């Protein structure tokens, strides 16, 4: 055995490479329990609570999608409201055609992915900050086109048909479950995507695009895929917003405010961590509820906290938690541990 072979085998024997952090199995159980409890909530609490939670789930889904786009794909968009709007209007249009509105939420996701293909051709011509503003202009174009369609209600919006036959309590519970399903699916989709080959490609692209393409990663394909997934997720979220509010207003649904929510939730929670949007959404939601009597001051606070986080806490709150405890609920990297005891035996 040559020296280098000896060293290699020793090194291989001395370290453990695994996906799971030490805490992952326990935290997976805790999260499963939490998901089951949340699922059972309509039987346990008043409808007012579950109705409010729908908003939280939508925020979690939107923020997760923005995190996937910007935190992992490096595509900082300020125009995801385009897909929230298209998703919302798709549900209205499908419901008008007689499709069950809850089913239409799924179709809304597909519609958005279809719209995202030609949109990405245009948007991907811009880079960095110009991509951000470019996507915003595209969202504005979609809004201006939608208000020109009379059958979609024009500038005053339209209400959703097809849900009036359902009992109000049942409707509330169904909306809650579909929102919960959306939030869970968006977190799970991000997790599963990032564990695979795409995740590695994306993180390589995000960290150094030129180097990534030189080792054979198809940069455009990876970015386009993540853009389509994010569009679909935002579209489904737009659909949930519509089945929850039962109507749609073009100015509100295509508002850049959604981007503000997504971006600052992710930045405060921790960009580039799957846990970040979850934590950020909970913090934002708490802030919104606490300051609900003070008009739009919570947005002033959100903007200020977001600026502070960008300057002094670039890894967000979850970055702090992770640095302190090493906790990782959704490990997408690899953990390398040395087996100190085994080294001696060889």
């Amino acid at each position, binding site marked *: 055995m040559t020296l280098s072979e000896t060293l290699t085998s020793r090194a291989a024997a001395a370290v453990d490479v695994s996906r799971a952090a030490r805490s992952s199995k326990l935290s997976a159980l805790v999260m499963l329990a939490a998901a089951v409890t949340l699922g059972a909530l309509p039987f346990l609490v008043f409808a007012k609570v579950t109705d409010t939670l729908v908003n939280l789930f939508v925020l979690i889904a939107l923020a997760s999608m923005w995190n996937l786009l*910007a935190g992992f794909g490096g595509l*900082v968009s*300020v125009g995801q409201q385009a897909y929230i709007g298209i998703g919302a209007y798709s549900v209205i249009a499908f419901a008008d055609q007689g499709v069950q509105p809850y089913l239409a939420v799924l179709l809304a996701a597909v519609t958005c992915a279809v719209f995202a293909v030609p949109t990405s*051709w*245009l948007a991907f*011509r*811009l*880079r*960095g*900050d*110009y991509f*951000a*503003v*470019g996507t*915003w*202009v*595209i969202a*504005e*174009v979609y809004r*201006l*086109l939608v*208000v*020109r369609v009379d059958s979609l209600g024009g500038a005053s919006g339209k209400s959703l048909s097809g849900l009036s036959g359902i009992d109000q309590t049942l409707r509330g519970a169904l909306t809650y479950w579909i929102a919960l399903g959306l939030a869970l699916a968006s977190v799970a989709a991000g997790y599963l995507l990032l564990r695979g080959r795409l995740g590695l490609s994306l993180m390589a692209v995000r960290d150094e695009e030129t180097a990534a393409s030189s080792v054979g990663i198809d940069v455009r394909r990876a970015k386009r895929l993540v853009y389509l997934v994010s569009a679909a997720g935002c579209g489904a979220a737009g659909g949930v917003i519509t089945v929850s509010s039962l109507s749609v207003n073009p100015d509100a649904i295509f508002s*850049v405010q959604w981007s*503000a929510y997504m*971006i*600052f939730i992710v*930045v405060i929670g921790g*960009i580039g961590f799957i846990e970040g949007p979850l934590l950020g959404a909970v913090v934002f939601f708490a802030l919104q509820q606490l300051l609900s009597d003070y*008009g*739009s*001051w919570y*947005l*002033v606070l*959100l*903007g*200020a906290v*977001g*600026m502070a*986080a*960008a*300057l002094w806490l*670039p890894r967000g709150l979850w970055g702090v938690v992770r640095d302190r405890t090493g906790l990782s609920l959704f490990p997408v990297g690899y953990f390398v541990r040395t087996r100190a005891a085994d080294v001696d035996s060889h």
Partner: protein
Amino acid sequence: MDFLNALVQGLLIGGLYALFATGLSLMFGVMRIVNLAHGDLAVVASFLALALISGTGLPLWFVLVVTVPLFALLGYLTQRVLLQKSLKSGPLATLLVTFGLSIVLQNVLLEVFSADTRTLDGGSFATGSFKLTDSISIGYLSLATFVLAVGVLTGIQLFLSRTGLGRMLRASSDDRETANLVGGDSRHIYGIATAIAFATVAIAGLMFAMRSSFDPSIGPSRLIFAFEAVVIGGLGSLWGTLLGGIVLGVTQSVGAQIDPALTLLAGHLIFLAVLAFRPQGLIAGRKA
């Protein structure tokens, strides 16, 4: 002849768009910052002028003279205190900081001035006009705005090409580290660039306020105009920005002639067309 009139009006408002876009172009050219609060700053200038006039009864021209240097100072401070720090943390941080500033400004204005639509009364000068031909009448304010815009752009161009500080500014934008090596203090230079940008934003904001009504939430759509003018004209070229502003203004104006609801859409579509077929802009200055 209506279309000729639309063309002339579009050209005149294009000058204002260009003036407004100059600050965005300058900040991107020198510091690689896209200031997402650009539109909101213009609205702040509008509201500041409104508050000064209704609060103190000072004449309009005096308020204009006060607001512009005030904004320049504000710009210098914003760069030194807020943006300089974000530059070290990478491009995402600058975007987040300016977007955060935009959200803060918008909502503070909303709380202080309410969501009501306001106008700045420019008196007879703002509403007066003269007839060029039977179908084309030109507003004094429109013409003055255009002349002012071209004047300011020329001034900035001369400053950049003829003065030592201007040369240092261009040097910093080409290569910050080398500019620092030959004695330029990039922080001070960046402060100056932001001060100029903020001053032009203030002028443009006041002109917008006299021309059309405004409310706290209008900033983002103003930002989009500026951004479109910069991209249409070509990044990093002041005359490109003027051309971009004019193209945008004329397109909007002609679009409005066909159908008033088309005003904004026509502008956005010409922007997307340039993006698709000539991404370097009409006058290619420097690569993005």
